């Protein structure tokens, strides 16, 4: 700028600009326009058309993503339910089974154990799932009971005899179970409390089971339990039901035993 602030030209410029600016007073302005603009400025600005389109597209994308997530979340549980119910829809037979009182065998299992209804076998599958268990007390129930709503059941009575649908095909390899080992559809092999086992091989009339957790002396347990169910000690060291095909082999060094029926 000028190195002489008090220069006469600068003074004249300031005075001329000020005089011209002062010609415009508040009363010279278009008041109608003033009011209209002031009113418009007091409103929140509306988003532009492009911004609205982008926002709408974003909302649609978010909704689609949410639907996808829900669909993915639902699909596994539906698949699980289908697998569990599958034996019930293919088998019309039913059985009356006596099972030992289930007890929680995992840290996730409180007093209420929660195997899945579709896997209603005498030996309950060890699971950390929290769905309640359905146990029906109606003798000779059919497979349709698997469609009943899930009801929480507390297993507190020791040695209770529970009638339960028993689709034996629900036993599968690779899963841990607890409780009695089913021998066909009509008889079970009692197992100590908290013992867990898994199926290693299975045929039409036999099944090899490997004990995965043995909390107590199983021979002593069987010696006190099995005779009451009609079992006898066999010469080979296992157990059998006289006059029938039911037999239990001795337990191998690896904790496996084979049951036949």
């Amino acid at each position, binding site marked *: *700028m000028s190195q002489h602030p008090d220069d006469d030209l600068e003074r*004249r410029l300031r005075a001329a600009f000020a005089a011209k*600016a002062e*010609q415009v*007073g*508040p009363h010279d302005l278009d008041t109608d326009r003033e009011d209209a603009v*002031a009113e418009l*400025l007091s409103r929140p600005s509306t988003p532009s058309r492009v911004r609205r389109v982008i926002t709408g597209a974003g909302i649609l994308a978010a909704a689609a993503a949410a639907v996808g997530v829900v669909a993915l979340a639902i699909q596994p549980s539906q698949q699980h339910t289908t697998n569990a119910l599958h034996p019930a829809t293919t088998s019309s037979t039913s059985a009356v089974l006596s099972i030992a009182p289930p007890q929680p065998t995992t840290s996730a299992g409180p007093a209420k154990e929660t195997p899945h209804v579709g896997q209603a076998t005498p030996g309950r599958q060890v699971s950390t799932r929290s769905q309640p268990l359905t146990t029906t007390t109606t003798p000779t129930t059919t497979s349709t009971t698997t469609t009943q709503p899930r009801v929480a059941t507390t297993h507190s009575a020791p040695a209770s005899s529970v009638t339960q649908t028993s689709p034996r095909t629900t036993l599968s390899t690779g899963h841990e179970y607890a409780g009695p080992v089913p021998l066909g559809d009509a008889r079970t092999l009692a197992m100590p409390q908290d013992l867990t086992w898994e199926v290693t091989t299975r045929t039409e009339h036999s099944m090899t089971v490997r004990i995965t957790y043995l909390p107590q002396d199983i021979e002593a347990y069987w010696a006190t339990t099995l005779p009451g169910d009609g079992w006898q000690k066999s010469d080979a060291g296992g157990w059998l039901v006289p006059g029938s095909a039911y037999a239990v082999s001795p337990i191998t060094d690896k904790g496996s035993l084979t049951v036949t029926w």
Partner: protein
Amino acid sequence: MTVSASAVCAERPYRVGGRILDRGSAASRDAMSADDSVDLAELYRTHHLQMVRLARLLVDDLASAEDVVQEAFLGMHRNRAALRDSGAAVGYLRRAVVNQSRSMLRRRRTVRAHLKVAEPEIAPPADHEVLLDEEHQEVLRAVDQLPPRQREVLVLRYWSDMSEAEIAAALGISKGTVKSQASRAMSALARIMAEGGATDESTPR
């Protein structure tokens, strides 16, 4: 916005509605609260007249000046979400007014060049200069003969009392350019007035 209006405000008082307000006055604080979003209605109430005067110095006629200021405020309203720094609102507004004024003059020149017959002449009222002193009229006629950029620099410097940095921010040019434009403008003014060339026939805008 390269210069915060808070920094601008700290330097010197500025005119609002024909009176001088301290930068920290209640009116300016109301319109430029640091933490809230820009209250455009309040900004309009406190700075409308000042901006119309600024625009009139740049575009000469009052109706065009009001158009310029209205468009500047509406532009801020449309881009309200982008106004993060409420303290910079006045500087942003001043820059918008200058830019709009420049656009107005450019459109006016274009219209005059191509639609001279159809377009009515846009000129200040015949008596508007008469109301000014002869001395002021002489200076303003000389200013009218300057290029637009130099006129803008002089108006912002000697009417808005803005510093070189503020003018640079308002016009979107460097401080060096401001300095050189101001220097050339003053030299040209002195020459025009010395030659008595500031006649009634001012440069058409």
